[in-house]
């Protein structure tokens, strides 16, 4: 591999002081950010560049977009998807919301000894199918096997390569006050489906994971409104609240979220009310957020809604000057609250 620009020397300002790794470091919220910004970024010399879903590197004079994601989920299969579909869609979506057309994927499997062969075949088929639908090829990978009892059946890591779409110029720094925040559809389906699939909660709901490629939705958006498109992100772990907080932080602006406009299915709302969870913190695997210039907002929304699966898209908020670096949720009756990034894993409130 030849990289045109040499890496800058590492800036060794490690600020990560947590005594041990806890589940929260992988939950996508504050602790994850502290780990990446305080340990990985300074040591790997990427301090100062905004943390996005994918990196753009120049390979022999050509820009390439690269991203990687590891998938650990229990149970392996749930309504609407499985670890295999997640592994493809998750990486595809990271490329797509970074303004790239997905080109190729490599997949690494960590398998637990004792995993039934037909489960592995099922997941490989699911990946092949998801890749075909997403228009991407799986071109390579690696397989490791660990002792029985060590890997919840299987873990999958996928790394994706994409070609940047020259029409898309997304960056938090280009976001301006007055810009509109668009969400592609109802949130919380994935997180709540997996929670219920674990069987720890005695609840049943007509619900399935939203795992899918957001490629067609984004393609339509770019086709119609690339000029006004300023920022995109897929709100996976940590949910919409975390993604919007990252936007607020990286842009130095405020986000006003009109809570009643956020599309949420009744089953998800009900489960969240019951368990004391905030739907804005629940994970999604087939939605994206876009910030669009006000003049283009309507066209952008129509473009997403015109694609099958995009009918539920809505303008859920707007960018404001103040309060800076903060997401404020407004209720339909005039109350407001600060919407925080997720701290740790979302924990149910019972007592």
């Amino acid at each position: 591999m030849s990289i045109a620009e040499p890496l800058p020397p590492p800036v060794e300002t490690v600020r990560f002081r947590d005594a041990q790794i806890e589940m929260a470091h992988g939950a996508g919220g504050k602790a994850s950010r502290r780990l990446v910004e305080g340990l990985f970024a300074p040591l790997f010399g990427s301090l100062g560049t905004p943390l996005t879903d994918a990196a753009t590197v120049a390979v022999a004079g050509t820009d390439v977009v690269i991203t990687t994601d590891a998938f650990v989920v229990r149970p392996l299969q749930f309504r609407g998807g499985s670890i295999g579909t997640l592994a493809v869609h998750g990486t595809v979506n990271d490329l797509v919301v970074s303004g790239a057309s997905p080109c190729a994927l490599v997949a690494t499997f960590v398998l637990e000894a004792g995993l039934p062969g037909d489960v592995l075949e099922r997941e490989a088929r699911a990946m092949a199918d998801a890749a075909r639908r997403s228009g991407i090829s799986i071109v390579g990978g690696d397989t490791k096997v660990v002792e029985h009892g060590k890997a919840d059946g299987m873990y999958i890591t996928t790394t994706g390569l994409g070609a940047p779409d020259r029409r898309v110029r997304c960056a938090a720094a280009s976001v301006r006050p007055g810009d509109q925040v668009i969400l592609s559809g109802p949130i919380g389906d994935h997180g709540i489906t997996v929670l219920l699939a674990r069987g720890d909660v005695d609840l049943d709901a007509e619900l399935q994971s939203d795992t899918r490629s957001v490629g067609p939705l984004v393609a339509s958006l770019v086709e119609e409104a690339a000029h006004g498109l300023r920022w995109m992100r897929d709100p996976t772990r940590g949910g919409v609240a975390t993604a919007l907080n990252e936007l607020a932080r990286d842009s130095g602006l405020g986000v006003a979220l009109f809570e009643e406009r956020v599309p949420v299915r009744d089953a998800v709302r009900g489960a969240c009310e019951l368990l004391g969870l905030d739907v804005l913190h629940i994970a999604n695997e087939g939605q994206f957020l876009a910030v669009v210039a006000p003049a283009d907002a309507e066209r952008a929304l129509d473009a997403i809604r015109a694609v099958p699966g995009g009918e539920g898209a809505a303008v859920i908020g707007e960018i404001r000057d103040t309060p800076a670096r903060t997401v404020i949720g407004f209720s339909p009756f005039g109350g407001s609250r600060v919407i925080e990034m997720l701290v740790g894993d979302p924990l149910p409130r019972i007592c």
Partner: protein
Amino acid sequence: MKYVDEFREPALIQTAVAEIARLADVPRQFRIMEVCGGHTHAIYRFGLEQLLPPNVELIHGPGCPVCVLPMGRIDDGLRLAVEHGAIFTAFGDVMRVPGRNGSPLAQQARGVDVRIVYSPLDALRLAQQHPDRHVVFFAIGFETTAPSTAVTVRRARQLGVANFSVFCNHVTIVPAIRAILESPDMRLDAFIGPGHVSTVIGCRPYTFMVERHKKPTVVCGFEPLDLLQSIAMILKQIRESRAEVENQYARVVPWDGNDAALTAIADVFELRPYFEWRGLGFLSQSALRLRDAYGEWDAERRFPVAGVSVADPKASQCGEVLKGVLKPHQCKLFGRECTPEWPVGALMVSSEGSCAAYYNHVYCRAAATTS
């Protein structure tokens, strides 16, 4: 969604807000304590404080079970897993509460078998699935959750599940309210009565608050309209110089409580002579323990429990905040040593704790606008 959307209807809420403004339009301060953590959470979640006139002040009370749990209880409970190899089960609420050796989640990260359950019956089921292990349920909550613990202990006896026990931290709400009312620095005018607790105990136990202490008390639901309507009812009482127990949450709370739940509590539990509350100190007859008949399922009898008392860090002022004497941000540690991510005091742990609620929804905004 039924029973939710009606209580978030903007037009009705505007009407209630106008009614409050009308009733509060006198030159005086109204200091109202919401006892229950669920109310604190709802007040911040819906931004209700901003809808109130400046002279109507809400003070967040002691009704968050994890907030009043002394640190030593977490240590004692976790020791059953660390030293005796038990599976430690608890509600998600407890998982981030710091003990001296870390929270249950921190212990889990070190390999201690800590599991989140949604009901004590889940913990009992776990015991049946793992007959070779002991499963301890770290029971927490006011009268709201005590009945489900009681039913679980009864079922354990019925089914003869011997590898299951309860580490009981159930507390009762009335002694806490009494402690606040009798505290010399008390400066409250009225109470928003707890909703969930009252579904079990009813409204009658609060009569001492109006008869002896002359503090209007309105038992209240958890939706925005519930809270605003209750505040209006309280202001009306004060303006009319009345002090009564009123039930705004009658769609759920029966005046006399829930007989079956109360019977289950009485059958399984008895009052402890005293129990330590974080911030309030030792309160007599304020907590529950298992009766002798169920002693076999009492973790504190089955295992040696040190009963260590761990003092809160000297600088923290959880007690004053809990009693409403100080606002959260007036505590010396608030927002510096003590944050939701690194809580020193328990009020910072639960999103129902007044400090965490205050931090998330008010402090962040102040910090954001001034930076």
